């Protein structure tokens, strides 16, 4: 979840009042945000935004917009959005698109701003917004990448082209020499970080102006000249490239609204596509594409469990910065330009809930009776636990993930049937356990200082590959126990199994078995109702040596699901 840094002074100035930490924390809940920390010296607030569907909140301007609305300030109307009906003139501000981009990174959107010199806070917030949007919402630049340029240096039309990687070169930001596009990927840090997005393309996305002056190599890096925005610049050109046009338009809307709130004049830019898009071949940005959303008051009241009037609902929405009107039992809302998270009427209901205020909903207990019940497996395992404890066993609990060394090599078993993790974080957590026995032996291996005798057990899950299941795996509830003490062995464990199964009221028989984990001739399978329900015996000294265990151990493992 994104975290942003906000200059406290700016926040409070824009909100029109200074808040204590607890007041701020309480207000932030209206944006599903939390105060994550403070840098008192620099006057910076660190704020975590929890709603991944609200990228408009990931900037100081966006957060302030939400919070000041919540405090009752009127929400501003943005008048620079073109729609399918009304399109703004853009004059010379045009971007053309190369048809060769269709199969790689087909979309670009852009707009310009002017009317104010860029100052330090604006620049910092713009860079932060760009990073958060492209990283979290743009999936690490693969879906959305954004560039900001010095508009004064640009001659329209801007050209978004598919460039030959070896024959195209420019001086990227933070470099002092010209590199071709392959060299940019190989030799610059950003190229190494994001190069995978374009490396497989035969031609790379590239942006120049009409004179061939380079803007950037998206989604990797800007040019050193046009792409180096500085404090004091008066006019900016902003473009976003990517794979999902709606997400690009939405992101451009967020940035445009943020800059408009900051005092800039938004200058629309026309994009001319050589291929069809869902909004046609000519698109003027910023562009408003959202449809009105609606919810019935009946659904609002039912889901919230409160008899809200339409006026109360509309007032609540207004505090959330959402305009709506009421007609014949339904609320119709105009989705704000910077939002795209009204998928279902319930999304409006949540805004009504937050806008109305959580404190105004009185908790109420469900008034229907339902019988509580444990699973049959849980009830059975509790019986088994009680018997094991009666026999002097200490219950243990273990992690289910482990290493090949512990689960396979030390146990001298084959890796067959083990569920292996494809992307392990470390080799220590690479396999799902197929048996509890290695866990018990691990205990013994680290517990030679604990007073003997050792009698430990666990009832827990184990899983293995199982071709007979549609899922391809089975998860079972196992009981396993280990006894480590001088002079104990097969006979003691056999007695305990006899006691256990007697009190669980299960008949059983034993069968000789050869198993590499046990001393030959001192292991047996437990057969219940004709099926193998478990195994026990004296652990093979080679296995003990593999674990570094110096005390003889006997173990048993039983499939409780099979006994059930």
């Amino acid at each position: 979840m994104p975290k942003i840094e906000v200059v406290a002074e700016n926040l409070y100035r824009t909100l029109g009042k200074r808040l204590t930490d607890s007041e701020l924390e309480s207000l932030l809940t209206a944006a599903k945000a939390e105060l994550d920390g403070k840098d008192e010296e620099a006057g910076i607030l660190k704020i975590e935004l929890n709603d991944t569907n609200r990228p408009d909140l990931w900037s100081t301007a966006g957060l302030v917009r939400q919070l000041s609305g919540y405090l009752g300030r009127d929400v501003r109307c943005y008048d620079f959005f073109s729609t399918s009906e009304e399109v703004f003139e853009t004059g010379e501000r045009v971007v053309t698109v190369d048809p060769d981009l269709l199969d790689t990174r087909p979309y670009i959107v852009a707009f310009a701003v002017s009317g104010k010199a860029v100052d330090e806070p604006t620049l910092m917030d713009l860079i932060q917004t760009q990073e958060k949007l492209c990283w979290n919402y743009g999936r690490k630049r693969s879906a959305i990448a954004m560039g900001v340029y010095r508009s004064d240096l640009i001659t329209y039309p801007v050209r978004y082209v598919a460039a030959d990687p070896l024959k195209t070169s420019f001086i990227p930001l933070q470099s002092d020499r010209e590199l071709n596009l392959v060299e940019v990927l190989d030799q610059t840090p950003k190229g190494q970080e994001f190069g995978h997005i374009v490396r497989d393309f035969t031609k790379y996305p590239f942006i120049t102006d009409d004179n061939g002056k380079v803007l950037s190599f998206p989604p990797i890096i800007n040019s050193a000249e046009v792409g180096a925005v500085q404090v004091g610049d008066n006019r900016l050109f902003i473009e976003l490239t990517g794979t999902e046009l709606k997400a690009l338009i939405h992101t451009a809307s967020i940035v445009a609204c943020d800059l408009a709130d900051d005092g800039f004049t938004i200058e629309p830019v026309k994009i001319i596509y050589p291929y069809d898009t869902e909004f046609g071949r000519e698109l003027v940005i910023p562009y408003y594409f959202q449809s009105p959303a609606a919810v019935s008051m009946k659904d609002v009241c039912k889901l919230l469990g409160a008899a809200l009037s339409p006026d109360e609902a509309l007032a609540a929405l207004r505090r959330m910065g959402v305009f709506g009107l009421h007609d014949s039992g339904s609320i119709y809302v105009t989705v704000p330009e910077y939002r795209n998270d009204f998928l279902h009427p319930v999304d409006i209901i949540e805004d009504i809930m937050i806008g109305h205020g959580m404190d105004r909903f009185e908790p109420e207990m469900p008034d229907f009776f339902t019988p509580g019940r444990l699973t049959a497996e849980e009830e059975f395992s509790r019986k088994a636990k009680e018997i094991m404890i009666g026999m002097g066993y200490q219950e243990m609990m273990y992690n289910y993930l482990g290493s090949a060394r512990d689960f396979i090599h030390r146990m001298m078993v084959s890796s067959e049937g083990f569920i292996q993790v494809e992307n392990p974080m470390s080799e220590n957590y690479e396999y799902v356990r197929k048996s509890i026995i290695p866990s018990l032996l691990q205990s013994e291996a680290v517990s030679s200082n604990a007073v003997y005798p050792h009698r430990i057990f666990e009832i827990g899950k184990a899983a293995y590959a199982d071709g007979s299941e549609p899922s391809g795996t089975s998860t079972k509830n196992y009981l396993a126990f280990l006894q480590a003490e001088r002079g104990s062995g097969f006979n003691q464990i056999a007695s305990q199994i006899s006691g256990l199964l007697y009190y669980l009221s299960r008949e059983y028989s034993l069968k000789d078995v050869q198993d590499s984990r046990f001393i030959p001739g001192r292991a047996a399978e437990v057969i219940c109702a004709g099926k193998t329900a478990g195994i026990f015996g004296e652990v093979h000294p080679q296995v003990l040596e593999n674990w570094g265990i110096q005390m003889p151990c006997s173990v048993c493992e039983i499939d409780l699901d099979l006994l059930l």
Partner: protein
Amino acid sequence: MDIDVRNLHPLEVKVLLHIGPGDEITAQSVIESLGFNIGQCNQAFSWLEAKGFLAEHSRKTRTYYELTELGSSYAEAGLPAERIFTLVRNQGPMTLPEAAGQLGISSKDAGSAYGQLAKMRVLGMDDEKRVTALSESLPDEVRTARDLLNKGTEGLIEEASLGEHERWIMHAISKKRGAAAAPFRTLERDEVIYTLTDLGKKFVQELVSREITGDEYGELTQEMLAKGTWKHQQFRSYNVHIPPARIIPGRRNPYNAYLTWVKDKLVSLGFEEFDGPLVETEFWNGDALFMPQFHSARDIHDVYYVKNPSHAAYIDQPYLDQVAAAHEHGWTTGSRGWGYAFDRNFTRRQVLRSQGTVLSAKTLPIAKVPSKYFGIVRCFRYDQVDATHGADFYQTEGIVLGEKVNLRTLLGLLKMFAEEVAGAQEVKYVPGYFPFTEPSIEVHIKHPKLGWFELGGSGIFRPEVSKSLGVDVPVLAWGLGIDRMALMHLGLNDLRELFTPDIERVRLRRGK
């Protein structure tokens, strides 16, 4: 120090009763008069001295004589002088080498024995250089030495117990160093002499008045019961303050016991338990929860992918079609959907269950209305393992279905959890975000010990989730972060400790 006379050990009692006021007592005297062995004697003295009943009065060096190996053989076979005299007396005169040969002693020993007796005119040499007896009997010196040898076989001989004459003889046949060549070794021992302290005198009176003799019974035996002998004696009192020996019982794991307590609590609140496999498909782990397949919402948790089998054979219908349609265009749920092409291959991808909500979703197709369900289930996250992240861990999750459940009943439910499970009185609700619920609520509680913290997340399942899985009524979904309370309950601050393999640590651990 408070000492109860009844708690004295029988050895202590006997020593105290043996010693009179003003008496001086030593180990030797206790051994002789009470029949203690030296170990018992030393133990009794050290206990009594520690309690302040006896005090060291003085130390005295005593001299003892101990038979050497040579002395033992003399005691058995006789002294060389004794043997030569008897031989010559019985068999008549013979040369010295002849006598030594018959007796099996060295000519040197034979010579010195002859010399000793000749000096006292008991033996003499005739003309033919044969040894001849000149007297009827052995001299007193030899007889006395003989007696000392006999006495020496019974144990140490204390110098103080010998008469003047005996002492004089003993000096002649004993040595302090290089004693192997002499019949006796001279030993010097430091002996501590104790006397009763005033406190000791008080306790002696106490013993006497209570008629404690040190002969009281220790254990009650089967035999005493059978014969009724227990009726004739007192039983010794035990010191109830002695630290008891450690016991290692069979026992629940305290973390598991805590989870069991939570389960029982939820059952008592009318919840039915669910459970499920550790390996799940992307379908159940994310898609069914309306998390778009390639959206940043799936960044919320990174999952472990299963290498083999990498994909499930199929996903149950009609849920696959319904969920896919909900993602693509909303299906009939009233949603516009995410608007992308649902990947039906990716949805079969196997992962290790990363959130307990998976089982809530899986329960929907079989859920009763109305109903309440819960599960405490193991989940796996792609996280660096540290004090606050485990490779696998438990999540506590559940759902409540009903025609009439709503936001307010959700708040009521959370309040009930706060009070019943966390023991909190103050509850705060704040809007939250989860991809699968709308509205979403976080519940913060003021815990009696931990202060304000987030107890859990909750919400009402999005219709894209519940309708696609066959449920038309609202579904309250909730999850409780109980590990933090479990750690507090167990006095721990590291999640890894919950699954420690260390037997001793688990044995010592207990709940608060």
